[in-house]
């Protein structure tokens, strides 16, 4: 049996799944300041009367790192950057303890300026005096050559408990994103590890002995043990849990939209030919761009509990939530109250909703029916607009080959999947413009998604046969190669090194799932003669599900 737990802002959802489908599900309130306790309670309730030895794994989607970053309770962390020439390095300032070092690597990974020992000593003194114990070090083009990062980290290792070198966070080129990612990784390291310790000990106390995995923003999991040095990867796992959940509940997604409608916000994601779209370069966390691989998701401030009022003679909806709907004893009118008035929702004390709608109608000089319909439609309109804008944005992504531009590949979507508590109410309105599908078990789709996600990992290889070296930055591998090194050698290398890494880290996956997703080869010319090849590969286990649940739904 597998357990999936999604710790959300308000609720924590959990499901227990066996080969036949969902055995048990539960919803508990999230205790924001004690997430590991929340998880224990949820687990205890879920596993009551269950043979604990039959539990094979627990997959956990948690807000621990996201909250620490958003609420700015992260640990003081030193950021050391080695920018070399280019844009103004002060643009990358992320926190108070920010140091810029001399030293430079070019786009081919050649060191064009060495570190200055004098400067490095100064930084070390500074870190030591300020009592900082975590650090990030990032050099420009460290994905091509990590030497300057490694040297700096080595020099500072005795001062710090944990150092994140930029190159392990991503194999993609984007210095500012690597800085932010490495910084956050170090800044949440201690909190995440103490959370992990307590999750492990609480689980053991409950008598559960099984592997524990953490859900990532890309819709895959990694072992909790492995995530201890990569805690930043656990951010924004909520939307990815929902996306993977809907894939588990419905296998024929085609090109469609997913709406996860909550009390305060709606998360919007896209599927193209059944595959969820990813953020091109990585997730945005608390307004900062990072290289954390993430499924595409946009959040807007419209939900069932969005605050409704009249401003300057027109209806305003959201983005704030003042509390529960009036019908459920809340303080002010909400979108749900409009649904209740219209008879779309059967919820709580109808009279309280009606009272508010009638009052607003009088102020607007409309009938209460028209007013309630305007509120419901206005909320759905905002969601529709965001869907359109997300599709437009996807369609205007840049293309880099003649072939793609001439093909002018664009997507459009008519089908909308809705999950979340008020899914049915919004669906009633949205079905006028879209084909709306609300799958069974949609209220725990996120936990189902977490439960059924597969382990994912990715790495990239860059080889330059003219200079005679190859690197796989995420795995910390650099080696010399000869001029005969070919695409075939590169493919063998990336697969072999990744397998070795997985073995060392004791991560069990089906090796057949490893695939090479990008393969580019540029012939380098010096003068008018070929001098070698520039090879670039990416290898990954694509996010996916260990299986789907749809069969059972059809029975």
């Amino acid at each position, binding site marked *: 049996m597998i357990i999936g737990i999604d710790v959300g802002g308000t609720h924590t959802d959990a499901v227990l799944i066996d080969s036949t489908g969902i055995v048990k599900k539960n919803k508990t309130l999230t205790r924001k300041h004690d997430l590991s306790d929340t998880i224990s309670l949820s687990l205890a309730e879920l596993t009551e009367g269950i043979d604990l030895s039959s539990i094979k794994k627990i997959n956990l989607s948690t807000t621990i790192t996201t909250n620490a970053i958003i609420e700015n309770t992260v640990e003081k962390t030193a950021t050391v950057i080695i920018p070399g020439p280019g844009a*103004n390095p002060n643009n990358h300032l992320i926190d108070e303890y920010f140091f810029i070092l001399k030293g430079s690597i070019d786009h081919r990974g050649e060191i064009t300026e060495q570190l200055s020992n004098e400067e490095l000593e100064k930084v070390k003194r500074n870190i030591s005096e300020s009592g900082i114990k975590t650090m990030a070090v990032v050099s420009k083009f460290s994905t091509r050559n990590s030497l300057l990062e490694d040297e700096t980290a080595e020099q500072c290792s005795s001062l710090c408990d944990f150092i994140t070198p930029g190159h392990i966070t991503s194999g993609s080129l984007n210095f500012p994103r690597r800085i932010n990612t490495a910084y956050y990784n170090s800044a949440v390291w201690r909190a995440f590890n103490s959370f992990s310790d307590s999750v492990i000990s609480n689980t053991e106390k409950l008598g559960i002995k099984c592997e524990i995995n953490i859900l990532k923003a890309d819709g895959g999991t990694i072992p909790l043990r492995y995530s201890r040095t990569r805690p930043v990867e656990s951010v924004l796992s909520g939307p990815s849990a929902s996306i993977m959940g809907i894939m588990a509940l419905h296998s024929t997604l085609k090109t469609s939209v997913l709406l996860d409608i909550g009390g305060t916000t709606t998360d919007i994601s896209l599927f193209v030919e059944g595959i969820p779209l990813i953020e091109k370069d990585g997730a945005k966390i608390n307004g900062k761009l990072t290289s954390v691989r993430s499924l595409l998701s946009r959040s807007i401030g419209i939900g069932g509990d969005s605050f409704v009022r009249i401003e300057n003679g027109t209806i305003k909806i959201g983005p704030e939530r003042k509390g529960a709907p009036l019908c459920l004893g809340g303080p002010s009118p909400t979108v749900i109250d409009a649904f209740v008035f219209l008879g779309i929702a059967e919820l709580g004390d109808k009279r309280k909703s009606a009272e508010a709608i009638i009052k607003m109608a009088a102020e607007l000089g409309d009938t209460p029916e028209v007013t309630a319909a305007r509120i419901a439609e206005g909320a759905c309109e905002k969601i529709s607009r965001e869907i359109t804008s997300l599709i437009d944005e996807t369609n205007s992504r840049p293309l880099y080959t003649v072939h793609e531009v001439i093909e002018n590949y664009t997507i459009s979507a008519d089908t909308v999947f809705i999950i979340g508590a008020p899914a049915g109410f919004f669906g009633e309105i949205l079905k006028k413009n879209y084909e709306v599908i609300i799958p069974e078990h949609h209220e725990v789709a996120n936990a189902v998604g977490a439960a059924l996600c597969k382990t994912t990992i990715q790495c990239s290889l860059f080889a330059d046969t003219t200079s005679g070296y190859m690197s796989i930055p995420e795995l910390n591998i650099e080696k010399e190669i000869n001029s005969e090194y070919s695409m075939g050698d590169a493919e063998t290398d990336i697969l072999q090194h990744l397998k070795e890494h997985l073995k060392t880290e004791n991560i069990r996956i089906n090796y057949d799932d490893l695939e090479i997703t990008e393969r580019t080869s540029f*012939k380098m010319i010096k003068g008018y003669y070929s001098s070698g090849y520039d090879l670039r590969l990416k290898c990954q286990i694509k996010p996916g599900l260990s299986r789907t649940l749809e069969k059972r739904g059809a029975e």
Partner: protein
Amino acid sequence: MKTKKKLGLIFFPAYDWAISPTHPEREERLLYTHDQLMEEGIFDLDCMTELRPLVASNEDIMKCHFCFPDVESVTTESHLVSAGGAIRAAKAVLEGEVDRSFALVRPPGHHAMKTVHGNRGFCNINNEAVMVEYIRSNYGIKKIAIVDTDCHHGDGTQDIFWNDPDVLFISLHQDGRTLYPGSGHIDETGGPGAPGKTVNIPLPPNTSDEGFLYAMEHVVMPILDDFKPEIIINSAGQDNHYSDPITNMNFSAMGYAKLNDMLKPHIAVLEGGYSIQGALPYVNLGIILAMAGLDYSHVKEPGFTESKYRQSGEVTEYISGLCDIIVADYFSAKKNAGPRKDSVHMASRNIYYDTDGIQETRKEEIYTCSKCSGLYVIESSSNRNSLSAGIELPYDACERCLQLADTLAEKFTNEKKFHRVQLIDRKRRNFKYIK
């Protein structure tokens, strides 16, 4: 403090297109530029908007070029995307999406002339010229200046706007006596209908930042101030760089950034530049930062020191004298240009297409007119195409020129000697092959 500008970037490296496998105009030309821009996080900046290129239509091309035997025969899809990238750049600025834009597209275009039989100087279609006609026909803009900072003389662009009084063309380049295509001397100052509207600044080999910026300050800027264009376009070739393999100049990335900071073009379009590792990543970064009004003072090629590439005193002195003559010529041409008279000017020339080995013979008749910008008629043949003709009418064509064009069109259509006849009628928006 500089003012930040919203900059539109049309980055189109055409990773699947090359002239030939070892030709400098090949797939990875913009690869390291791409790497540098990605690593700098340029596309993530709030002030940057990355835009997809459009695909130029045959009509877009035919508003500008006479293509023989037809557009399809002299272009590939890549040329249409590259020209479409320039069009997208113009559209973004003129429709207010962005303040400025930079089309980093390939293949380049500034050696493509009025008549096109194939590829010369790596160019088939003149991206800037196609863009200029797109701007004039869609946005009611009249006066446009093109400043060409490629190391090679922009002979194609010069040829296209030679007789156009509303387009000022200024080219800074390595002296034609020492580099392809050999033209661009100071006495090439515009056709009979547009005297002084072509300005050539042929700089001596080994000119460095100092010389380029001197010419900018003492020639380009005062002439622009006088001409008062509504739109300024930079043909942003990058082969003046000290590391370029096929030229002999000593311009730096910082110099290019300063030049753009001074010029403040609305639109820049990439042209040549084949030092794909040592120059392009840094030069493009410098231009982008300067155009966006961002700090470019940290842009520097590895190992570059100003003293290493400083021009000699002799060069400095030569440039100073040269600039004085060019500015004086421009203002005297303006002073001496009386009202346009009705007359016909005939010329003929041979044009060699180095890339494709084509030899074209072109005869032209320029009608200057007292009422409009005048009619332009060409007869052209090459070792690829038998004799063809082209008739072009300006936006402000007068009734008499319209009638003359109609008479000629009918005559050419009936004459057996013409294989193809193309019409560019900007006044009545009629762009087609009439034979």
